[in-house]
């Protein structure tokens, strides 16, 4: 071809640059799922999971937990048919006394929780009704847009802390005694450190806050928000409609068969929506509170893996099949084409 020299020279530059990437020749590793790999993977997973499950179950078993539901019992007999009225009436005596026995020795610290059921802290209207900015710093006092419908008083003064969550703060109180001796309840350090230090300002003081008429607790306006640990705990909204929140800690050991007497101020209204209230005392282990779920799950998965491994071994022994047999390819086997690769 005439002039081919010049075109060849010119088109040298047209040749794209070589690289492994552009030629799709990057080194690659491909795992082929041979029976050996599959079986050994299952066995390894099973062998790891089952012991982990057993250990966690054991840890969960060592936790001692006392749950006492008191919302029904703490209504005087005369008001049993009219609970809502009882709880809303300010004149009624809301104190009530409960006793229970410690089943096993409980080592300190013993955590005191209150547990609410059928309480939707995760309701959209509720979750959103707070102003993180206002909680954080004094200068954001007027940041109440998100707090609707509980942002300001009737006189248009901003409420601090504003919003439905703060407004409905839990206000039952508990007093503990064993054998006639009062147990000290430590209510410090029950909230997250980060919440206390960063999210709730030390210069923000409650202002225009409710005085306990409709909803929950009232706040001492001389204590900054960062010290109001009950509020901080409450403001961490729960994900489920049944939830526990930390009330305080007992820093004494309790012996088995000790009888605990609790004096409860039953103030919080859960009767409107048929919610329950319980008091929970619990010790902890390395996996936290009592939780069998993790252990059971680990054991189940480990068990399934072992079972599958055994099944595959049996299949492999009884009916072996050479690896990469082309006669199994769909076009070599006209009768029944199988989907999938």
């Amino acid at each position, binding site marked *: 071809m005439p002039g081919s020299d010049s075109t060849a020279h010119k088109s040298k530059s047209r040749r794209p640059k070589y690289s492994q990437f552009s030629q*799709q020749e990057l080194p690659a590793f491909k795992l082929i799922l041979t029976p050996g790999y599959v079986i050994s993977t299952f066995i390894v997973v099973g062998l790891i999971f089952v012991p982990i499950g057993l250990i966690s179950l054991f840890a969960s078993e060592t936790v001692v937990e006392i749950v006492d539901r008191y919302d029904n019992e703490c209504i005087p007999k005369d008001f049993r048919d009219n609970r809502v009225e009882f709880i809303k009436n300010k004149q009624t005596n809301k104190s009530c006394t409960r006793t229970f026995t410690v089943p096993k020795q409980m080592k300190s610290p013993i955590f005191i929780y209150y547990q609410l059921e059928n309480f939707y802290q995760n309701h959209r209207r509720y979750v959103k009704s707070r102003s993180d900015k206002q909680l954080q710093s004094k200068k954001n006092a007027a940041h109440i847009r998100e707090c609707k419908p509980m942002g300001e008083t009737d006189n248009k003064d901003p409420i601090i802390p504003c919003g439905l969550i703060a407004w409905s703060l839990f206000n039952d109180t508990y007093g503990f005694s064993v054998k006639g001796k009062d147990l000290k309840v430590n209510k410090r350090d029950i909230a997250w450190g980060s919440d206390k230090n960063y999210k709730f300002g030390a210069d923000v003081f409650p202002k225009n806050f409710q005085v306990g008429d409709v909803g929950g607790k009232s706040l001492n306006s001389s204590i900054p928000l960062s010290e109001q640990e009950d509020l901080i705990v409450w403001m961490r909204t729960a*994900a489920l409609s049944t939830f526990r929140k930390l009330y305080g800690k007992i820093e004494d050991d309790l012996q088995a068969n000790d009888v605990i007497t609790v004096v409860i101020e039953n103030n919080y209204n859960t009767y409107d929506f048929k919610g329950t209230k319980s008091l929970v005392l619990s010790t902890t282990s390395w996996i936290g509170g009592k939780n069998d779920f*993790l252990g059971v799950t680990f054991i189940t998965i480990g068990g399934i893996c072992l079972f599958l491994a055994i099944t595959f071994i049996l299949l492999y022994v009884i009916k072996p099949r050479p690896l990469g047999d082309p006669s199994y390819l769909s076009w070599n086997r006209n009768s029944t084409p199988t989907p999938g690769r």
Partner: protein
Amino acid sequence: MKRYIYINDDETSQDLYCANRLSNRKYTLMNFLPKNLWEQFSRFMNQYFLLIACLQLWSLITPVNPASTWGPLIFIFAVSATKEAWDDYNRYLSDKKANEKEVWVVKQGIKKLIQSQDIRVGNIVWLRENDEVPCDLVLIGTSDPQGVCYVETAALDGETDLKTRLIPAACMGMDFELLHKIKGVIECPGPDKDIRRFDGNLRLLPPFIDNDVCPLTIKNTILQSCYLRNTEWACGVAVYTGNETKLGMTRGIPEPKLTAVDAMIDKLTGAIFVFQIVVVIVLGTAGNVWKDTEARKQWYVLYPQEFPWYELLVIPLRFELLCSIMIPISIKVSLDLVKSLYAKFIDWDYEMIDPETDTPSHATNTAISEDLAQVEYILTDKTGTLTENRMIFRRCCIGGIFYGNETGDALKDVGLLNAITSGSPDVIRFLTVMAVCNTVIPAKSKAGAILYKAQSQDEEALVHAAAQLHMVLVNKNASILEIKFNGSVLQYEILETLEFTSDRKRMSVVVKDCHSGNISLLSKGADEAILPYAHAGQQTRTFVEAVEQYSQLGLRTLCLAWREVEEDEYQEWSLMFKEASSTLIDREWRIAEVCQRLEHDLKVLGVTAIEDRLQDGVPETIETLRKAGINFWMLTGDKQNTAIQIALSCNFISPEPKGQLLSIDGKTEDEVCRSLERVLLTMRITTSEPKDVAFVVDGWALEIALKHYRKAFTELAILSRTAICCRVTPSQKAQLVELLKSCDYRTLAIGDGGNDVRMIQKADIGVGISGREGLQAARAADYSIGKFRFLKRLILVHGRYSYNRTAFLSQYSFYKSLLICFIQIFFSFISGLSGTSLFNSVSLMAYNVFYTSIPVLVSTIDKDLSEGTVMQHPQILFYCQAGRLLNPSTFAGWFGRSLFHAIVAFVISIHVYAYEKSEMEEVSMVALSGCIWLQAFVVALETK
């Protein structure tokens, strides 16, 4: 609409037509934003996302920060707008460069240097050698005394040979001075995009004496973007300027092609949308009911007693927004992104570089690579596509004597050489026709050797062969042609050239022997275009046999003929021809009719046979692709026998015992109908047998079949895996593509020449071979490759990988969006159906962008099987063809997978924190990391 152009008239030419200002821009600075936004919002997906984003502005219902939708939306819009803007800016720059180029133009009788954009219709433009032509011009003068100039039209049609252009007869012999003052009128049609036609008239105004109407053809024009070569200067009248030039009219954005995968994704998106609506309605209703029965009792939620009219809508709309993440906003962008990477892989592929010219393959259309794997029919051209299109003169039959049969090379045949030395008149005349009857331009190289520049490879082969047989075409100078034969120089004056068209299938020249003054007509053409016009006394049997024999060997045949023309007859005919050439309407047809009047009573001289070798690897490629379940149709303009021979030699059809070739023929409707039914009957019977049945049809029968028996022919098309269609015109090729497309087949058309362009544009995928017939096909195509054998790699490797990757990526995008959406839905069941979002805006955005969109891009370099395995077992392609990796059932699998994973992730995350103590933020983080791990696991598992 006709145009009247007043040459060199500064007053009238001013404002009637647009100035020569090129503008390829889509936008201006002012309209960019609205126009671009409008274009983007005409897509359904974008409208949907905009609606969602707008709803999110309503803080009562939005579950998350509006920024989480507006951010990506604006980002996506910005990306595509920036891309458009960048492209447009580049177009603007190149326009500007062209517009500001300085050219010599005559203004008020003086030659001035002005910017190209100021040229007006009617101006006289002067060009020097190697100048680019700034607008479409009608030539009126050149430096050549014969009025010829040479142009290179590569930018226009990709053909690299030089073309001659003539000044019209009326302007012949004008000198420099006169050309400045010339006045006249050019009558021509309105702007169109046909670069092969220009039907105009020129009339010079007094004081020029010759004020006859002078016809103008495309030969008298030089078009925008061509280059003036081998000519010192030329000048012409601007007839079309700016965007109205032939080139300007051809430009334009071709309709975007939608791939099967895209269509499927759209369908699935629609299905998800319906699912989403259902979920929203169910959850919304349940939410409203729950609100009325339960939530009103919950004093801490503080529902107002009175509510606005839209209250009923609030919860459903919240769920709509919550569920809007089901349709991943990023899917289009990431698909576009990876598809352009696939295209780049094709461009970069070392194994698809033409070793001869070093031309890499190129993907012009970056959006359709996965369609390559779903091709079911390949329609291929023959010449230049399957064959090399390098023509070599092999045999000939002159006056009944066969040359070259023993040696296989007529040039070395002693008998022929002897006949030449002995001066046998038939042989000499035969050689003369070979050397004269063509449009080849000889050019002397610096070393003194003669180079032939030809548009047609056949002509080049004939001229070369003639030269080797001592009949050397030395020089072509306007109308005088010089031939050297055995040392003596013969001169011919070319009186007329009766051009080749694909309808006429022959070309002729009328020449006058300068020595004797005799006028003769020399013709060459296809056998059926020459032999019927032989004069009554001549026996054409031997020629028919020769044609038969040659085409059985797979050679291309041409018949050569001549006759003497009387002076009177020529004069009379010449007038008719002139008149026909100056008609503005149906000129081509009129000329063909007039030509017919001269081309009769021919004395047939002989038959030439030209070999066109098969390209390397063609049979293997066809065999492999056929194993992959792809059906082949060959569409060629060539003769039936040649086509069948080529088909046999390249595995296209199998020889007798194994294969069967049925033929549909007939000249009338009835004959075609009968033959069609017969073939159909055999087809139906043999479908069960393992026999390769193919049918062959010629252009004439095809025309009838397509017109009257479309249904039967369609059935035939579905039944047969192979077909050969010969003698078909470009538009028939396109029709066949349409036919197969209408049966819902994915078609790929591959070709190399201008006659394949329509077929390539019509097909789902057009592949052009950047071959020797110019680049026209390659330009129009979606992919251009150097050799036919690269098709195998294009389909099996690039097509298949693209399909697999796109199928994975698109379904994965839905999977990960559904996963997170299901968790949201589950959470809404335990949050009082109030539409609370478990996840906050930041984590949602991070999930969509960092955790899922970017890592999955790894799958774009994923290979499930090695290239070698795929090439060895082309059957693997069945999966892609049948769309096994992306269809409603695989999608249902992914859907189920996301549902299952969501359940697992949700259950674990609400229980893991001794559940009574779980806080929303903790749960949300646990669930999110669960999703991230799960999807990463899926990516790792699915990519190999």
